[in-house]
């Protein structure tokens, strides 16, 4: 029982990281029906931005996190403008291939500056408590709470603000949106800024929990977060959060009770099986047919 509680806490930590990254995939898909396969690498860049900020400015955790979020958000907007926007009328496959290319570009650009894995300075004082046999670390709690806080904030923006309304409108039919006086390109840029900055935040938090970072760290985690988004229902924001926690839970529990090499096998099997029975994911809906 204590073991399960302990593992549940670990699952929440991993799940919240997956969920934060999954939000970036799902937001971009929602608005452009395109999978931004560079997103996992933006998560990696987020970790490196945090690392550089921590070394250069010696700032505490929160300002470092903000610097990384802003940096990755701006990078995300720039990538959309330079690489994706010219392909908006092109077949979606072209945009997806471009995204894969951008991802490889980011990995190799980072490799130019950091050819070796780097160890990230600890920005948070890590205190551990043992409560009824369960070990709880302050780092874990902070990661979980910060992630949940960012998710609540995002949910508020999307559901309650004018910008969020515009994002949802663009995801429904972006050809009509200009007739409302709403500039579509601005809404797309804001979506990229928010989605990618969440990935950046995840990168900083992840590198506090697992403090060795390298330019390829975003690949597998990016795939996992993408699975989370699909499991939850791609394009659906709450779905991405749920999917992230489900995947985090499954992975931790597999590693807890089975040989840990089964972890990815089970994760990808989950994706395959779920897609057979619920092709649109848990909260996803078939996209409306436009008449």
């Amino acid at each position, binding site marked *: 029982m204590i073991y399960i509680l302990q593992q549940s806490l670990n699952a929440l930590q991993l799940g919240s990281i997956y969920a934060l990254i999954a939000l970036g995939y799902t937001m971009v898909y929602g608005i452009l029906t395109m999978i931004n396969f560079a997103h996992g690498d933006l998560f990696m860049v987020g970790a490196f931005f945090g690392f550089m900020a921590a070394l250069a400015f010696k700032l505490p955790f929160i300002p470092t996190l903000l610097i990384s979020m802003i940096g990755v958000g701006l990078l995300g907007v720039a990538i959309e403008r330079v690489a994706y926007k010219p392909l908006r009328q092109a077949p979606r496959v072209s945009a997806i291939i471009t995204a894969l290319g951008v991802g490889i570009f980011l990995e190799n650009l980072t490799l130019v500056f950091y050819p070796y894995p780097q160890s990230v300075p600890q920005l948070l004082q890590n205190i551990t408590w043992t409560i009824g046999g369960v070990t709880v670390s302050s780092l874990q709690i902070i990661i979980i709470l910060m992630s949940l806080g960012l998710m609540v904030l995002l949910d508020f923006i999307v559901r309650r603000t*004018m910008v969020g*309304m*515009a994002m*949802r*409108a663009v*995801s*429904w*039919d972006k*050809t*009509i*949106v*200009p*007739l*409302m*006086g*709403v*500039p*579509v390109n601005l809404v797309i840029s804001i979506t990229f800024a928010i989605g990618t900055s969440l990935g950046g935040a995840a990168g900083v938090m992840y590198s506090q929990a697992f403090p060795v970072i390298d330019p390829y760290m975003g690949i597998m985690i990016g795939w996992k977060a993408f699975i989370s988004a699909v499991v939850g229902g791609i394009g659906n924001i709450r779905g991405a959060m749920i999917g992230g926690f489900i995947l985090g839970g499954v992975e931790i529990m597999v590693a807890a009770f089975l040989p840990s090499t089964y972890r990815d096998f089970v994760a990808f099997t989950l994706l395959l099986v779920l897609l057979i029975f619920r092709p649109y994911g848990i909260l996803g809906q078939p996209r*409306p047919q436009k*008449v």
Partner: protein
Amino acid sequence: MSAASLPTSSPRSDDQIPLLAVRDLVISYGNILAVKGISFDVYEGEIVTLIGANGAGKSTTLRGISGLVPYSGDIWYQGQSLRRVPADQIVGRGIAQVPEGRGIFGNLTVLENLKLATWQRKDKGAIADDYERVFKIFPRLQERQSQLSGTLSGGEQQMLAVGRALMSRAKMMLLDEPSMGLAPVLVRDIFQVVQEINRQGTTVLLVEQNANMALRVASRAYVLETGTITLAGTGEELLKDPRVREAYLGG
């Protein structure tokens, strides 16, 4: 080619500047020429209708005015060219469009649809008045304000699309086939509303396949055939015109 050679039929004196002046408008989709150099005017306070068959270029003309498609020729609104104005700023200039097929955002509530149309407005107090105005014209929308608009009936969606255009407080409203897919009784309601909105001071440019209804409410009308204006006149004149009766009013 241009309507300049046709009777202008403007009821106004020659020195009045039209609210909207379209000159030699050409719009093509790839190699297909949809609008072949048309010119027409809309004066303040009028209901002007463009009638014509499917594919005549009516919707394309409206899309050009709203800045959704590139064109050559020129479109003047209140004496200023709209040529280089992006679509989202044309709404701010005072031209709202109710697009073909209504174009409501089905994943937004009724109220959110209305609210989105106020994006460019800064006059918070007047916005509250405009909700009231819209709900007075369409009480049904008030009843359903927190409902997802995708669950509305076709007629209600059309009301919402018109209400949304009103929320942008446009001086001029472009309506693209408001009668499409509606039962005859609802069509009559919608046309009554269009007349009411016009009486309250909005200039209307109406595109319709339902020529009979459109010509009855219109001050002036233009007939569009495969991208060219072939006839112009007052609504009454065209209702009586044998060519119009033959082609659009079932003889």
